[in-house]
């Protein structure tokens, strides 16, 4: 492992600085040996050999394949820690080899929230269907630099992998949001789209406020759904703004028959990729649902009768809601079909940031790059064993930016939708992020 801090004016320059020379791996002949060991290594040609960074025979024996780590400053601003994986030569990831699982370990460390994931391919990168590249944990951002061409027919996802860089709750550390200059032309703003404002009602009906958008930025989270059945003065929680490292989270929902409620800060989504809005402290006929975030807010069961297994006034993970959007899955739920069952992932996760730079062509006909906000399953949940009430807000969309070095930039456009507003008293939609293809 090489430790190297990097100071650059742009992310492109940083990737080039880190990539050059990364192929010169350290000799693995260091250490203490007795003469017998030395003779054995030397006689088999294994003494003082400088292995390339991507040598499979040695990498498979390592806990990971990372070659560099350190801190990064971009245009004078601290951009967090990074981990860099280097691949020397062309890399084809297809379903005929076993690289998929290995590459998860090769490309991504378990460093959560405080680190970006950088991957430098010193050659062409060719990803086949159905290979999936997605960090196992939340990252400040993921950036691929490909010295050759990039052919993408697989799936790259940063959905749910936006960082909780708030330093609060389940965050692994605070990193201040900064403007991230990519290539001297495009800059991701420190603050993305605004969060949807608190939704206020004083009469029968519903109100929601969707998250906003920002040029080159992530999307803001949506407010919760505020529904007054008969009468009352109620407020649903606000979404949070997107940042350079995460889409915004969603505010808590509210649904009452005649009662009023009072909103407090914890009902709003927390800033910098933090927690989703928590449900209201009191409930009446209906329950109340938390918003999406890191972690997602729970639901609180209703006080009325006929609510099945939900215990009144007790917060618990959201049921049936908050799914990763899966529009391309032919077997996805339709109509009012519910999503994954209770306790499955709830509303955890915000959309992250993915950037790819290739010096050659960017092509691919069936590939997909996603970083989407978390949304509700399209499921109405009032009675029975549901107590969701007015649903919490959806998350803002992330960033998927592809930079191509030639005029051939025909590969798939990243999908960066905000979480959708469910049709069934769902929380407000998150704002769209930025999904685009640019010149390197």
């Amino acid at each position: 492992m090489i430790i190297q801090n990097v100071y650059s004016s742009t992310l492109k320059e940083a990737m080039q600085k880190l990539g050059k020379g990364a192929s010169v791996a350290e000799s693995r002949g260091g250490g203490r040996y007795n003469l017998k060991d030395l003779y054995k290594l030397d006689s088999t040609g294994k003494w003082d050999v400088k292995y390339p960074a991507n040598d499979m025979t040695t990498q498979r024996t390592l806990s990971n394949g990372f070659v560099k780590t350190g801190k990064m400053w971009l245009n004078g601003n601290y951009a967090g820690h990074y981990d860099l994986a280097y691949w020397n030569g062309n890399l084809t990831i297809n379903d005929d080899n076993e690289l998929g699982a290995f590459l998860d370990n090769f490309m991504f460390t378990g460093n959560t929230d405080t680190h970006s994931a950088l991957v430098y391919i010193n050659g062409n990168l060719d990803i086949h269907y159905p290979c999936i590249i997605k960090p196992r944990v939340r990252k400040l951002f993921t950036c691929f630099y490909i010295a050759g061409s990039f052919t993408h027919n697989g799936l790259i996802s940063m959905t749910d992998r936006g960082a909780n860089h708030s330093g609060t709750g389940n965050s692994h550390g605070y990193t201040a949001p900064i403007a991230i200059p990519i290539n001297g032309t495009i800059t991701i703003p420190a603050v993305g789209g605004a969060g949807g404002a608190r939704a206020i009602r004083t009469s029968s009906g519903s109100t929601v406020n969707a998250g906003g958008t920002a040029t080159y930025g992530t999307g803001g989270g949506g407010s919760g759904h505020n529904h007054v059945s008969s009468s009352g003065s109620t407020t649903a929680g606000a979404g949070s703004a997107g940042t350079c490292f995460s889409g915004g989270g969603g505010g808590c929902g509210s649904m009452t028959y005649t009662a009023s409620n009072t909103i407090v800060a914890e009902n709003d989504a927390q800033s910098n990729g933090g927690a989703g809005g928590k449900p209201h402290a009191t409930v009446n006929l209906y329950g109340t649902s938390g918003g999406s975030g890191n972690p997602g807010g729970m639901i609180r069961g209703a006080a009325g009768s006929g609510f099945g297994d939900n215990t009144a006034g007790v917060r618990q993970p959201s049921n049936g809601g908050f799914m990763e959007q899966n529009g391309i899955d032919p077997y996805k739920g339709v109509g009012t079909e519910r999503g994954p069952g209770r306790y499955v992932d709830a509303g955890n996760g915000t959309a992250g940031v993915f950037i790819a730079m290739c010096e050659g062509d960017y092509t691919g006909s069936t590939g997909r790059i996603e970083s989407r906000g978390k949304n509700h399953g399209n499921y109405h949940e009032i009675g029975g064993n549901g107590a969701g009430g007015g649903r919490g807000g959806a998350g803002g969309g992330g960033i998927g930016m592809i930079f191509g070095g030639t005029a051939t930039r025909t590969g798939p456009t990243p999908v960066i939708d905000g979480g959708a507003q469910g049709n069934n008293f769902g929380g407000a939609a998150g704002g769209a992020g930025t999904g685009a293809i640019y010149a390197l």
Partner: protein
Amino acid sequence: MKYFIHDHYGGQQGLIDSLPEGYTALDYEHPDTPGIIEGLGDGANIACIPGVVAQLSMKYTNTPQIEWKCVSVSHCSNWDEVESALTLVETEQDQAWELHKQFLIDNGYPIPD
């Protein structure tokens, strides 16, 4: 008026070329586009691309409420499919209200107007 939010990477060119009367096509990367949608009110914003921002009749109570909504049309290849996507949002909220109403009836609550 309805707004078709698209990007300029060619994927929606067929829909742009056959834009029906009553629609305005807006490139989401144009700096004016977010302000146009936000200015419509109802807390509407651009949530998805491609998407359609339209006033829909949402039945949260017995009296439908007209609201601006941004609806994903990423699965649509023609305008009939787009219209179906918009109608589906209204239909599913209608169904949700019927379930909600039945719940109130079952539990002895008057149905508000």
